[in-house]
Every structure is written in structure tokens, then in C-alpha cells.
């Protein structure tokens, strides 16, 4: 079965290119797996030898699984056998891998099962792309790939990226990146070719809720009082910031939080690639088809809190534009029942969608040498043992008004950049830890030592009834007089959160922040 026999001489359109890439990928994978199987043919339990070759870890899934994947990949390439059965078997393989994600604590899932999830997903993607009826030259709306198929194709790759992480094998990594770029192009071409239609048909996002324009809902009336304001400084130099961290006002306190203004003015996300426009974000996510993991519920310490993976478009439509805080009173009747908050929180969106990574820049401040965790932090010994990061850790935080991150500490220094909207942040120094009622190892073996049992919203009087507020003060008496600092972090500002500082974060509007952890 030569890959050559399928070479299309003149790749005129995206869908043709896609089929070509899938044929090459499945050919390459089946040859490699066959090669591995021959080398290890005497062993039913493949030897542990991760140094050899970069696709090797998948061998540890055992011979039957490797052989099945090899056959499915090879038959996808040669288009032989029953297509439907092939898809079912690929789903079985993905299911086996998924079971392992539950059977092990997430961080302990052996690399082989991540590889299996990834490679079986890629073969499934290829099987669907190759078997898609093609319309060379493109029918007006179709251009070879229907919207439904595009949905399905994007979802397969994103599930693999979210569940299994970046592929272990170099070839698969390249395949992922180029394929997603190609799908983005195909989608953009479709959008362009349909741009002769009336605007009302195309701009679905703009017209979903209450005839809004291409903007997030505004919540101007929603404010929280700031009682112990954090100092602001206008874009300090690298040296000035380093000096600030290393020369604290009080040695018993260590470096304190600081707001830096105008530090991200030159980010494309704040200019020509505007993150405050839903249509821009949709255009960067293959028409909103990319999947994102979101947290649902008020706060991760509440009952009824959950996580799910949905399309970016659904997230925008169901949680950002339809958020209860954002619905104008005259439209309340249209709002669905049981609205819960949805929050795209602590997700490395930029590894998943590299083109969004180009809209921001790592602040220079993250490359300073910060002081070690302060000795007054009970978690300092633990945090001090963390290896020095090669690169800052990036996370996206995108949600409607009133998302809450309960009072907690992080193991790194943090620059929190506020790209869109406003957030209230309250911080307590590490030396107040004894007054903040840290949780411990809880039911189910989850270590919550970095999270406080206090609901700051209730304690501060933002939430709850007077009775509940009184109960909070009685339950957590030491916290009542614990000194803190707070701020409303405005659009375009950055907040420096020193390692070990407790922080409670609450969005006051639709908000998109990026955190940069460094040490």
C-alpha cells in the first residue's frame, strides 16, 4: 500500500489537503507501529524503554492494543474494510484510554494511555476526514466539508488535546498544529464565500441575546467597595520592579502586592486583535468550534460545582452573553431557568490555540529574580522545593460577571494581567495564614491546604443574608480582624501577587485575564 498512490497532484483547496495529510499520517503511524511490533515480537508485555524513539511509550499499552491501532490506522489509509466498524473500534480504544484517566489520579496517568488517547483520536479524525464525500472545486456553501463534519473533526482533536495534552510524538504534534490551522483556513474561506449573505444571517453571535452589538454585556452599576487600596505605579522598569520585590517595606511581611498600570498597552489583544469583541474570539476558534474546559457553579468550594468541556461558541452564548447578571431586566423572561455561572478558569488556552498566544506577550517582570517564598508562609518549605521554571506558566481566566475564585494561595509569584473587564481582588499576607482557616486533606483524598474555608464574599458582606454574615464572623473569628489589602483591577492593569499571598478574586463584569506564574 503506497502512500504515493493517493497523492493528489494539484492541491487546490483545503479539504483536498486535509485528506492528503490524513493519508500520510495514518500511513506513517501504521508503519511505525508495525515496526515496533516486529522489534518486540517475543514480548507480550513490552519492555520499558522510553529512551528509544519518541512514539515508544504507546507500546506499554500492550501488544493487543498496539496491534489493533496499527490495523485500524492501516485500513483507514487503504480505505479497506467496514468504515462504521472501524469508527466503533477506534471509539473502543479511546474509551480504554479514558478509563485510565479515571482509574489513576490525573497526574499519575501513565504516558502510554495519554498516547493511546491521542493517536486513536488522530486516526478517528483521519477516518472521518478521508471518508467524507468530497466535492472537488467546492459547492457554494459546502466547500467539501459540511459544518456538521467540521464540528465533529474539531471536537475530536480538541478532546485529545484537553484530555491527553500535547502529543508525545513529534509527527503527531506537527499534524495537530497544521491540521487545526488548515481547518481554521477552511472555515475562514467558508465565511468569506458566504459574506454575500445578509449580515443578519452571518452574525449569529451579535444577534443572540437582546440584539446586542459585537460587545460583551456591560455591568456598569456593579461595584464593590475597596477599603485598603493597593498602591498603583505606572509601568515600572524591569530594574525598578526587581528592586521593589527585593526591598520590602517590612522584612516581616516580604514583598507586597502592587498594581502596574499601562503595562500591557502594546498587546495586540488590547488593540488590533481585540479580545473584547466576541466576533474576534469566534474567528480565532474555528467559528467557535474549539472546545474549552469550563467550571460550572459559583466557586470550586461549593456543592454543585462541576467541570465540563463545551464549544467556545456555546460558552460565549450560554454563559457569557446570557449570564444572569448581564441580562437586562426587560429580557429576564427569556432567560433559561437554573442559570449557573460558567468560568473558563486556569486553562492553558494558549498551548491549545497558539494563534491567541500571539495576541499577548509575557511581561518582562516575569523574568526578574523574585525573592524566595516568605518565611512567614506555612507553605514556604513546600513552595521552596519547586524547581525553577524555564518559562512562566500561562493560564487564561475568562468568564461573566461574578465568577469567584475562593481565598487561596499559589505556589508561584504571579502577574495577573487584566485584558478585558474588571475584577475585585482581596489579598492577605502569608503571615496571616493562622487566621485564615486553611482546609486540609478532605474526603476523597484531595489536598485543599492551599484553600481557606472562609467565604470572603459572605465575611465581607458582599453575599449572603445578615444572619449568614454573622455566622461567618462567629465561625471564623480570627479572620475578622486579619489585615488585608484590596483593589478593583481595571482593564489594562496588571496585579503582582507575591508567592504565598492569599487571594480572593471576583469578576465585576465580563472578564478576561491572563496569569503568569514565575519563580
Amino acid at each position, binding site marked *: 500500500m503506497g502512500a504515493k498512490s493517493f497523492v493528489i497532484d494539484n492541491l487546490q483547496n483545503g479539504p483536498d489537503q486535509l485528506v492528503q495529510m490524513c493519508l500520510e499520517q495514518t500511513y506513517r503511524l501504521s508503519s511505525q507501529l508495525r515496526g515496533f511490533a516486529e522489534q518486540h515480537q517475543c514480548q507480550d*508485555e513490552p519492555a*520499558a524503554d522510553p529512551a528509544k524513539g519518541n512514539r515508544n511509550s504507546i507500546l506499554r499499552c500492550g501488544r493487543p492494543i498496539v496491534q489493533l491501532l496499527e490495523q485500524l490506522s492501516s485500513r483507514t489509509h487503504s480505505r479497506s474494510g467496514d468504515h462504521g466498524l472501524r469508527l*466503533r473500534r477506534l471509539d*473502543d480504544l479511546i474509551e480504554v484510554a479514558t*478509563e*485510565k484517566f*479515571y*482509574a*489513576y*489520579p490525573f497526574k499519575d496517568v*501513565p504516558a502510554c494511555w495519554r498516547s493511546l488517547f491521542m493517536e486513536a483520536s488522530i486516526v478517528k479524525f483521519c477516518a472521518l476526514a478521508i471518508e467524507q464525500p468530497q466535492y472537488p472545486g467546492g459547492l457554494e456553501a459546502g466547500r467539501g466539508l459540511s459544518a456538521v463534519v467540521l464540528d465533529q473533526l474539531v471536537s475530536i482533536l480538541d478532546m485529545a488535546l484537553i484530555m491527553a495534552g500535547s502529543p508525545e510524538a513529534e509527527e503527531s504534534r506537527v499534524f495537530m498544529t497544521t491540521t487545526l490551522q488548515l481547518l481554521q483556513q477552511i472555515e475562514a474561506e467558508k465565511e468569506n464565500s458566504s459574506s454575500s449573505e445578509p449580515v443578519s444571517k452571518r452574525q449569529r453571535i451579535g444577534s443572540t441575546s437582546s440584539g446586542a452589538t459585537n460587545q460583551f454585556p456591560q455591568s456598569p452599576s456593579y461595584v464593590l467597595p475597596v477599603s485598603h487600596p493597593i498602591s498603583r505605579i505606572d509601568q515600572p522598569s524591569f530594574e525598578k520592579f526587581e528592586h521593589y520585590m527585593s526591598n520590602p517595606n517590612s522584612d516581616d511581611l516580604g514583598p507586597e502586592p502592587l498594581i502596574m498600570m499601562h503595562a500591557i498597552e502594546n498587546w495586540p489583544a488590547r488593540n488590533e486583535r481585540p479580545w473584547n469583541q466576541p466576533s474576534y474570539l469566534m474567528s480565532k476558534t474555528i467559528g467557535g468550534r474549539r472546545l474549552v474546559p469550563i467550571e460550572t457553579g459559583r466557586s470550586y468550594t461549593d456543592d454543585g460545582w462541576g467541570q465540563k468541556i463545551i464549544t467556545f461558541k456555546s460558552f460565549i452564548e450560554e454563559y457569557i452573553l446570557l449570564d444572569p447578571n448581564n441580562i437586562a431586566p426587560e429580557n429576564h423572561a427569556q432567560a433559561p431557568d437554573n442559570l449557573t455561572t460558567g468560568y473558563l478558569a486556569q486553562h492553558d488556552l494558549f498551548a491549545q490555540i497558539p494563534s491567541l498566544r500571539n495576541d499577548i506577550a509575557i511581561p518582562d517582570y516575569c523574568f526578574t529574580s523574585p525573592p524566595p517564598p516568605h518565611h512567614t508562609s506555612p507553605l514556604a518549605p513546600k513552595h521552596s522545593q519547586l524547581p525553577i521554571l524555564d518559562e512562566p506558566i500561562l493560564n487564561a481566566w475568562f468568564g461573566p460577571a461574578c465568577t469567584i475564585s475562593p481565598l487561596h494561595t499559589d505556589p508561584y509569584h504571579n502577574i495577573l494581567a487584566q485584558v478585558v473587564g474588571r475584577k475585585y481582588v482581596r489579598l492577605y499576607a502569608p503571615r496571616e495564614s493562622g487566621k485564615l482557616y486553611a482546609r486540609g486533606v478532605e*474526603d*476523597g*483524598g*484531595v489536598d485543599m491546604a492551599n484553600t481557606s474555608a472562609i467565604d470572603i464574599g459572605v465575611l465581607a458582606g458582599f453575599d449572603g443574608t445578615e444572619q449568614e454574615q454573622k455566622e461567618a464572623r462567629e465561625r471564623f473569628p480570627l479572620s475578622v480582624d486579619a489585615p488585608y489589602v484590596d483593589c478593583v483591577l481595571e482593564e489594562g492593569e496588571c496585579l503582582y501577587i507575591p508567592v504565598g499571598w492569599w487571594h480572593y478574586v471576583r469578576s465585576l463584569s465580563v472578564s478576561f485575564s491572563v496569569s503568569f506564574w514565575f519563580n
Partner: protein
Amino acid sequence: MQLDHKADLVALAGNDKIVSYENGTLKQYDSMQAYLSKDSVEIGACKDVISLVANQTSFTALTSNGEVWTWGDARYEACLGREVCDESPPAKPHLVEDLLDLPSGPIVKISSGGYATAAVTEAHDLYVWGGRTGQSKLVEGLSGQPIPIDLDGRDFLDVAVGNDHMVALTTDHELFVVGAGGNGQLGTYLDKLEDWKEVKLNLGHGRRMTGIYAGYKTTFVLVEGPGPDDNT
């Protein structure tokens, strides 16, 4: 696999942990590799274990006097069928007290798979427990507390739990199935069964089912009676 282990009983869980029962002690191995290099931790002494089974994350042992002991991953407490506290930590074998002094006598058979475990008593009652948050319940009412299964008062001879299906054999040699069937494991063409259903197999004249066994997504039945070539 090497055969120089002198274990009486061995069980392998979905998280690669292995437990063996040797000379009256339960030894746990962290992985297949640890098992092959005999790198074990003793997790407790348990007298007269006659059966040892595992599912994705938990182990269940049955003793000759009908006691059921469980241990495993704390994240899936329901699989343990018992209280978890400082005195009875999840990772150490502990007695399932709910299965003591049952009206139909002590447990005589256990089976485990996926996130569920089932047990049959001497006088043929069937109990199940387990479940994992986010997964649809294998049988109605499945939880961390053992519940009896009632199929119009039938008595049970045997039970077998697969990864996401369960089969039960009655003393009248009827086979009941429930759960996922997408790979044919229910013996019918149904993709999924939310409730128990009897499956009639064409066994031939004079033959009957006397035992059942479930694999990952497979089911086996033991049949008694005249052989296939026997035309009587």
C-alpha cells in the same frame, strides 16, 4: 508472566495495582513491574481468604466465614461499600459491616468490575455497591451502601461484574443482564440496558447454565448437560 510467585490468589486492578494473598497475608504491588520484581507492601493479615477480586480502583476479599473486606482508591469511596474514617482508612482492608448477619446468611461469592462490586449470599440473595460520580448508574440505586437486587423474588446462584455490565444467574438457571452491550457482552444486540432483562440463550436440549464469568467487555457462561455431539 513469571510463575515463580507462590500466591494463592491474585487480583489486578485497572490502575495497575496488584494484590496477592500469600500465607495468610495480603501483599499489594504498585504496578506490574513491582509485582515482577516482588516489590510489595504488606497491607494486612486476613484469615482464610477464599476469593480476591478487583475493579478499576478497589479490591474486595471474601473469607471462608463469609466476611467481605474492601480497600482501594479514596476518590471512589462508593466502591468500598463501607464507612471511611481514621479508624477505617480507604487504603487498608476493612470489613464491610453491612454484609454481616444478613437474613439470607453469609456471603459465598463476590465479583467486581468497572466501579461496582456484587456479592451473593448462602441463601441466594444478591447485593451490589459502587458507582462513580459522572458515570450513569449500572443499576438503579447503586451507591456506597450495599443494596439487595430484587427481580420478582428470584434466588441467585451466581453473579459476574464486567467493566460496565453485570450478569446474574438465578437458581432456576435463568440469565439476567444489565448495563452496556455495545460489544455484545449482554448476549443481545442492545447497546445499553438501564434495567435488568432476561436473556435466553439457545443452549440445546437438556443443557443449562451453572456458572457465569464476566471479563472487561465479555461474558462467559458455564453450561452443564449433554455435549454438542451428543444427540440424545
